[in-house]
């Protein structure tokens, strides 16, 4: 019962979010929040460009989304897989354990850190 409510609320939030990010362009509007890390340090964080990338993604422009934040596309698919495995955990505990294997988490961590470093060096 509580779980259904949480899922419904989460879906509603995602739909509202998608609508906002579809209708408004974060790169031309001043209403969207800016990255704290970038403002404080002058360096990009691994998530910088996510808002613009989501806007591009919702308009079907995969290439543009990839240019704004290459990690986002990978992260979204990974998050989807993780959430699916979590919802199926009682029925299929092996999928959850496989997705949460140390090797895979290491891979994502390395990917994130590498992306963070490289994007600040090459200004991606």
């Amino acid at each position, binding site marked *: 019962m509580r779980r259904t409510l949480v899922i419904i609320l989460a879906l509603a939030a995602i739909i509202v979010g998608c609508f906002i990010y579809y209708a408004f362009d974060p790169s031309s509007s001043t209403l969207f929040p800016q990255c704290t*890390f970038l403002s*404080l340090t002058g360096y990009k*964080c691994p998530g910088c460009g*996510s808002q613009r990338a989501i806007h591009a993604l919702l308009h079907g422009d995969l290439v543009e989304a990839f240019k704004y934040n290459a990690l986002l596309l990978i992260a979204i698919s990974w998050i989807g897989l993780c959430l699916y495995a979590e919802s199926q955990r009682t029925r299929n*505990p092996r999928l959850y*354990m496989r997705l949460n294997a*140390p090797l895979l988490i290491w891979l994502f961590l390395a990917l994130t850190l590498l992306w963070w470093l490289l994007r600040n060096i090459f200004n991606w």
Partner: protein
Amino acid sequence: MQYWINHNGVQSGPMDLDGLKEMGLTSSAYVWHEGLTDWVKITQLPELQGLYDIPVGTPVEPQPVENISTADASQPTPPAAAEPGEAIQGQPYQQPSQPYQQPSQPYRQPVAGEPCPPTNLAWAIITTVLCCLPAGVVAIVYALKVTNKYNEGDIEGAKRASEIGAWWCIASIILGILTMPLVSMISSLATSGLQ
């Protein structure tokens, strides 16, 4: 009455009603006790009503249940080759080579079948990509810690890492929500002040 449990493919028992209540069983668990020919769903035994699907955090009320010593050599054993139908789609967590160990002697406590505590990996990734402050990266490191400790058999350590990781996710979300509008406001004020 002593009961044997098969919950999510992990077998444990024997235990009394108090022990059952503390296991945090769900309605998908299978149960066997002496006198039954095969495993039955926990929902099919009327005396077990209210002992499963207990919300987390509900205090367990002490109930006057007869206490039978668990170390009894004349203990009955569950039916051999126990395969309670669709309960086993995955295999037990830590013993993939031998899915069902027939208890040769009664267990003193549940078998090493406690599921891995949540790694919060999905949330760690979400906060990394969306919350600007790189606290999400720390949460990913803790997700790694959870599985590593669990694989080493350190369930307590895994639980602690899981909790700390969850707090990093929450801190990242709250800090992101609090600081982002503030920083945006200050920077827009600064640029309008310059013009």
